[in-house]
């Protein structure tokens, strides 16, 4: 399959907004060595070139259908982009330090088109006054206030950190007790992290990364990705010609046309909206924190109410 390179290249080099850029080391596909490259993230495309000052782009990675994970590596501050379908790649990267690593992971986690689409849908609903948390709606009253308060409590949990913890919770968790001696890294993506040095989530290890890779292998539907509760529909494996043709208006009159997508790593349930997804994750984070604290610190039980709110 060919790609119109001129178009892609133009987009990469033009002055459209850059979401993140910087040096990362990238592991070659065949070689085991890491090469330092300058990366530029724009939307759901990750461009790279040899050096910042270079004019030409070497390549681009399209960030759809993949997950971002911490990974085991001889390099420090490593993370990877993983496509869990057989035959598809895993890209491995190493950042220069932890701050950079966390920042890149956070940026890449929310880079997909689908994430933006979901968030945009949520904003549209709020703007039109259809969302329960919307303050504009006339009949909001007590209900609206209540919802807003409870969602504010969780407000500092970013999508990224939620997805991280959500991911670890799956499967790999049973193995955790055997690793009690080791501490673990929970990248803290919270915007208020600076205020909470005692956050119980920040300890160091490689054990967490191992679990994340294991969990990734075991449960592709639970990967680090903004996603709704998996729908009961199986991922479609049809050939491209057999997509259903819908004669109904495919473009919602009121909002952006959202391409519907389903594959094993990602489910976009039709009823889920961004705020519900966010709330679901928030609850899971709290449960997870309680569990971790109970197992990881001998004798210390963290009361759910005493948890630090990120």
């Amino acid at each position, binding site marked *: *399959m060919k*790609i*119109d390179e*001129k*178009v*892609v290249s*133009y987009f990469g080099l*033009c002055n*459209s*907004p850059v*979401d993140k850029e910087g040096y990362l080391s990238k592991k070659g596909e065949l070689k085991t060595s890491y090469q330092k490259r300058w990366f530029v993230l724009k*939307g*759901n*495309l990750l461009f790279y070139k040899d050096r910042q000052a270079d004019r030409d*782009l*070497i390549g681009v*990675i*399209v960030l*759809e*259908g*993949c997950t971002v994970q911490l990974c085991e590596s001889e390099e420090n501050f490593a993370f990877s982009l993983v496509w869990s379908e057989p*035959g*598809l*790649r895993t890209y491995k990267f190493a950042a220069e330090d932890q701050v950079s690593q966390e920042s890149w992971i*956070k*940026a890449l986690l*929310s880079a*997909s*088109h689908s994430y*933006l689409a979901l968030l*945009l849908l949520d*904003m549209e609903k709020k703007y039109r006054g259809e969302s329960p*948390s*919307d*303050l*504009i709606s006339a009949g909001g009253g007590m209900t609206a206030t209540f919802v807003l308060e409870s969602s504010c409590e969780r*407000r*500092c949990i*970013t*999508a990224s950190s939620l997805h991280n913890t959500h991911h670890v919770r799956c499967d790999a968790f049973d193995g955790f007790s055997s690793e009690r001696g080791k501490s673990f890294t929970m990248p803290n993506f919270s*915007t208020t992290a600076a205020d909470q040095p005692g956050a119980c989530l920040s300890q160091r290890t490689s054990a967490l990364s191992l679990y994340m890779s294991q969990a990734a292998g075991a449960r592709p539907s639970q990967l680090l990705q903004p996603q709704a509760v998996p729908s009961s529909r199986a991922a*479609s*494996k*049809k*050939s*491209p*010609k057999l*997509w*259903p*043709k819908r004669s109904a208006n495919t*473009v919602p009159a009121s909002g*952006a*046309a959202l*391409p*519907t*997508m*389903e*594959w094993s790593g990602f489910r976009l349930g039709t009823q889920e909206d961004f*705020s519900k997804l*966010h709330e679901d994750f928030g609850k899971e984070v709290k449960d997870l924190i309680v569990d971790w604290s109970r197992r990881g610190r001998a004798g210390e039980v963290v009361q759910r109410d005493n948890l630090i709110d990120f």
Partner: protein
Amino acid sequence: MRFNEKELVFLSRQPSEMAAELGMRGPKKGDVVKRRLVKLVVNFLFYFRPDEEEPVGALLLEQCRVERDDSQTFSIVFLDEAERRYLFECDSEEECGKWIDSIIKASYEFMRRNLIFYRTEIHRLTGKDPLEQYGISDETRFQVSNGLQLMPRDTSSL
């Protein structure tokens, strides 16, 4: 330029609401209209020869504009120096309109601008930054384009 072809081909297999056989003409002089199965997935337009599993090619729908050439024909014009133009012939006026609309709205940059618009408006109308509840107010990709940041603490300003 290197790109992750297999992963992109995988993307092209995902179900899409906008998929149809159209006449398609490439940007080069001498290109003729050919029947292609055209499919919109995220911000890519894939095109297949009828009855083939793997796409012939993929077009990134960024930095382009969509023009209506006549009632059933539209073009995607890329904003590079050459203004390369891909032409598409639809079976009906309605189909043509849907394609134009969908392609415009599929652009990541278009969606981002919309998001920033809604964010700004909701903040203006309610005094609250709607992204704050998700803790993503400071993310680079959602910053108001003229450089002004919506300060989350600015809730009293009305």
